[in-house]
């Protein structure tokens, strides 16, 4: 049985034009790797959106990164102030990985 180690899985749903500034924070915090996933649409307090909007200003992207507990806390601390104003959804959950040293 291959041993696994617990890490944090951070997911951030964010508008396309705001991805770059978020990635700057991510780099600052020292996250080593991440993956971006596409979305189709959604609905929230500010109304509905979908990916057919020509401008892409409201097209959302799902950021996914696995990291250590400590780094996750740092990242959440840095992003919490802008979650409301920027309309960002931030999720944190437990995940088990094999090569623990890769996700620190």
């Amino acid at each position: 049985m291959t041993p696994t180690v617990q890490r944090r899985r951070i997911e951030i749903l964010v508008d396309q034009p705001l991805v770059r500034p978020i990635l700057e924070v991510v780099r600052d915090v020292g996250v080593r790797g991440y993956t971006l996933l596409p979305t189709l649409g959604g609905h929230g307090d500010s109304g509905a959106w979908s990916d057919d909007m020509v401008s892409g200003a409201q097209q959302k992207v799902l950021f996914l990164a696995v990291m250590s507990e400590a780094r996750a806390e740092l990242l959440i601390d840095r992003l919490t102030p802008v979650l409301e104003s920027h309309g960002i959804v931030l999720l944190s959950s437990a995940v088990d990985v094999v090569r623990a040293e890769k996700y620190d």
Partner: protein
Amino acid sequence: MEALASPVILFFILGALAAAARSDLAIPESVAKGLSLYLMTAIGLKGGVQVAAAGYSNEMLSAALAGVTLSFLLPVPAFYALRRLGRLDGVNAAAVAAHYGSVSVVTFVTGVEMLTARGLEPAGHMVAVLALMETPAIVAGLLLARRAAGVPAQRHGSLLHETVLNGSVVLLVGSFVIGLVAGKDGFAPIAPVFETAFRGALCLFLLDMGLLAARRLRETRALTPRVALLAVVLPVVNGTLGAAAGTLIGLDIGSSAALAILAGSASYIAVPAVMRMALPQADPGLYLGMSLAVTFPFNVLFGIPLYTMLAQRMAGQ
């Protein structure tokens, strides 16, 4: 009125009706994006080829100056109208104002089609004016936001970059230059794609725009009656100022009408993306609702003929 019977406009209306009736008709996002890149390349090339044929003229410089000035100054009255009459806060008023100072490529393209059909084809360099007018309004909007709401001028360099090197500006200017270099002879072998096929592709793109505008109108919560009214008043005022400016600097009627169309149009591609980044507190539902769901259809159906008539009247016809 006969302009409304053009297939280009009819496809726009078809899209709007389909979306209003909640049909599931939809053009894939990437196809629509591809069509819009094609349209920008085609008008850039065509403008460049025309300028290459016509040679340099002083009219070019004055049209360019008029365009840049309009783009930079039009946001100011718009801002105050949006604050006072529209009851928007400073940041939202500034964000919206930037959209109305800037331009809509598709409105311009549709306008040129309508003008050409009437024998009033604008000068080729109006494409360059279009490209020049995308950016100054963004700068004006950000200055207004900073003054009004103390929005910090963070990451200025990056924003300027985002604005000037925006994909649509680069493609328009780049294609214009390629058209200029290639000239009529270099353009001939690619003309079947970029000239002959242009109107048909525009039909399909306007079908999609009709769908998007009507869906947006239905889903938007941010459009108060005051704000919706301003989304009709602002283009009329700006379009009138554009026609006046064009007439004053002595442009031909077609070019003058084109300048009016540019001034009266509101951006819904380039500016929203920049504003979402520069003023994330501003409500994208508001500025996209106004420019895409109200102003764009208004301009396509009524604004373009109106601005054309104004340009004709002012020229004394």
